[in-house]
């Protein structure tokens, strides 16, 4: 878990750690509890996402493909 005041680089560090982990063929779950400016979706949300190597794309700087009414059910990630 990464804690610290605002603008201390928490999201950045969690992204770096996620990237290292996926490069080691791990599949961690990234949990973002920041409702102010979360990484995963629109502000005001908390969420979690399972990561694997395919989640990181060097080409695209930052794009979110968050659930456009996908049919994922509650209880699954």
């Amino acid at each position, binding site marked *: *878990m990464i*804690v610290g005041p605002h603008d201390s*680089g928490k999201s950045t560090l969690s992204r770096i750690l996620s990237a290292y982990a996926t490069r080691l063929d*791990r599949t961690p779950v*990234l949990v973002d*509890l920041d409702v102010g400016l979360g990484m995963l979706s629109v502000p005001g949300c908390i969420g979690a996402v399972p990561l694997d190597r395919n989640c990181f794309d060097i080409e695209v700087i930052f794009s979110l493909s968050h659930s456009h009414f996908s049919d994922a059910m509650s209880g699954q*990630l």
Partner: protein
Amino acid sequence: MPCQGNFEMATPLMYYFGHTNPAENIPLYKNYITNLAQKVDLRQEHDLNSLSSGIIVSTSGWIDGPGYDTLLDVIRLYSIDVVIVIGHDRLYSLLSTHATSSAPASSDPSNPPLTVVKLPKSGGTVYRSDSDRRRLRRTKITEYFYGKRSPSDLMTSLSSLSSATSTATSLQSQIESLPNRYSPSRIDLSLKNYNLLKPGGIQLPQSMMPLGQSMEKTSSAINELKLVPCPLSIDLEHAVIAVLHGTNTLHGVNATAPTLVTLSTLAESAGDGDPLQLLLSTNVAGFICVVKIDLEHDILTVLSPCPGHLPSTNILVGAIKWVE
């Protein structure tokens, strides 16, 4: 891998809190944290590789008072074993004291010993003012509906057009001139078919309470955790609201044709007597934004990421606003 890197994600599991500050409704925030923790646990149980990979939790910058208590809750709920404290000595010493005092006697796997690591703040961090934050939030929501334009899109469009672009225009403005990646659609929602809900319980200031009573002593904590029907009003204009996964989708009923799920039928399907509690542990299917309100006919015109019916009839209202 650039550290500003991107997640081309599978569907994330999201809960809509509806405020940009957890302190606005602490019981609700804790409720969602707890629910998320349970769901993450559930998923990890079924995926051995994921279980061994663990989880990475990024928190909000709220570290004082109740915020610190929330951090301790998160450590407990997510079975955290390593806490990285960035650039805050007092928080580090508080958490270190907590770690030594709460060290478990037995080697219980669900309650691992806590290691606290201190990291200096990177020199690359930039202070973001409130207006910066507002702008970033706005951009985030725009990106949700219209998609993010990226340099790679520019490359594709340049190669397909093979037009000579003027070198005077900057990369940024060239990117901004690209067409949107997504096209959201406007749909009309007749409100008699939808449950428009909001977390209830108004936080009264101390001055408005009867003499000698405080919010803590009354049943406010229960009220804050209750979803109440949200009346249609002009306040809803530009509100970003979340469409929850309804029980109709949960049970595999055709999700594209939403049937009216009233709160009473929700209660029946839940099997317990509290349908509102069920919806509070329901995650978000997607977001819509109110563009027009017809108070006379109870019709809400919303911007939706995809055309057609909403996947569920349960809509959760928050305090987030977005103007196109």
